[in-house]
């Protein structure tokens, strides 16, 4: 077990956003979170990355409770990478500088030391000739791939993806999904919030349907997509499929 969520509670003011989430994510697994807008997918991912503190419950990473109030979040975040819907590349840095910043600052590596491994990463994701481009000189798909490379450069044990294809033009979605596919094959542990039902169906080990801050139903892709038990799951799927 790499990551275990136990009865996660999270409210913004009086708005209960996560209401008792239990979830286990095994090593090398790919877990997909699906659900309507506002059901709490992004919030759950942000909580797992400690960008939002949870109100109650616990998050276990390899046997350590990382949700302990007052715990230094930085070492944890280095082990859990996150990629956002809106890319969030740093616009004043080239693609390569975007990728090198965190390893330089947190691992004390020099640009020279990073050059080879970072070039290799860009190469692997078909971005070798884009290293010295600024984000606004890249297509949406390229930007999102750079954002993935940036998270991977920290060599995380788990990757969180928050609807990373939702802001892309349809013809660019494929190249980003290909990257996810490659990571999956490599055995990366991944949690995705996604609206790409076809992709979830093809590759997920576990699909969780979130509704009003609860996991209403979880199971293999075939269970969820072919024989859903809950009416709300059925009606959600009939709207998106």
């Amino acid at each position, binding site marked *: 077990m790499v990551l275990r969520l136990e009865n996660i509670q999270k409210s913004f003011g009086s708005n209960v956003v996560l209401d008792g989430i239990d979830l286990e994510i095994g090593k090398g697994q790919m877990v997909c979170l699906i659900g309507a807008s506002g059901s709490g997918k992004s919030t759950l991912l942000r909580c797992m990355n400690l960008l939002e503190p949870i109100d109650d419950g616990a998050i276990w990473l390899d046997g350590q409770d990382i949700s302990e109030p007052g715990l230094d*979040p930085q070492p944890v*975040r*280095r082990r859990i990478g996150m990629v956002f819907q809106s890319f969030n590349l740093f616009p004043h840095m080239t693609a390569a500088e975007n990728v090198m910043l965190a390893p330089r600052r947190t691992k004390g590596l020099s640009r020279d030391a990073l050059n080879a491994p970072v070039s290799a990463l860009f190469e692997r994701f078909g971005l070798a000739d884009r290293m010295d481009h600024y984000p606004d000189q890249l297509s949406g798909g390229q930007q999102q791939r750079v954002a993935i490379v940036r998270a991977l450069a920290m060599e995380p044990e788990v990757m969180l993806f928050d609807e990373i294809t939702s802001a892309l033009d349809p013809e660019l979605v494929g190249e980003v999904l290909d990257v996810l596919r490659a990571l999956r094959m490599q055995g990366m542990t991944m949690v995705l919030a996604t609206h790409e039902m076809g992709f979830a169906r093809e590759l997920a080990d576990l699909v969780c349907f979130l509704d009003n801050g609860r996991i209403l139903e979880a199971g293999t892709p075939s269970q969820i997509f072919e024989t859903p038990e809950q009416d709300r799951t059925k009606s959600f799927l009939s709207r998106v499929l």
Partner: protein
Amino acid sequence: MTQTLTRRQAFEARQRRRATTLAVGSTVAVLVALVVLIPLAPGWEAVKRSFFNAEVFAKTFPGLLNAFVLDVAIFAWCAPLIALLGLAVALMRDIRNPALYPLRLLAILYTDVFRGLPVILVIYLIGFGIPGLGLPRPWNSPYIWGSLALILVYAAYVAEVIRSGIESVHQSQRSAALSLGLSPSDAMRFVVLPQAIRRVVPANMNLFIALQKDVALLSFIGPVEIFRQAGVYKSLMANFTPYVGAAIIFLCLTIPATRYADYLMNRQRKARS
């Protein structure tokens, strides 16, 4: 290149020609009216003699230019200190650590006080007050304390401008930096601040143009910079033309700088839309 215009282009070209003709025509009309009408005013001859005297102008202009070097020098040593102090104060207002709360409070108090006072009042209070303590040379110099007054006032404005820049950088940039494992201070230093500072360059340029003008206020506590030099010439020659000379010298510097700041501001607005 002989290119036939589309109907739209032809129409727009006609419109442009019409607008230019109108603008030139009305400008010329106003200028002619001024040139013809002003000399008709009863006091014009007297004003011309005491404000636009070519002979006095030629005699005093080199001296004024010389005195202006002091204005530029004062500006040159104040500007970097203002930038540093302004940045420090802007960052102090973001402090979350409860043990350092006094610093944050101090920063808030500081910006409120110095933005709430007329510059000339601060110059008087500090410029006359501190040397009044009977400090030994060189610590009684009005250059030091006058400059300090300018630095304190302008750093308060610069701090506010930088802070507005920091707030204009979207929260998601900070989230992305933190999610990579960067410390909050690294996220500020490498991700938020560089973007913030770029955005507020035009606003800060306008502040520094205002500073260049306000350097003249130091003349009230001693330094013989251009405004005071013009006053000296005025008394010597019983003529106001040196003030016009000083005004021209200021404008030669401030108008291009203002135009440039506006240009930067426009370019940013376009880049963002």
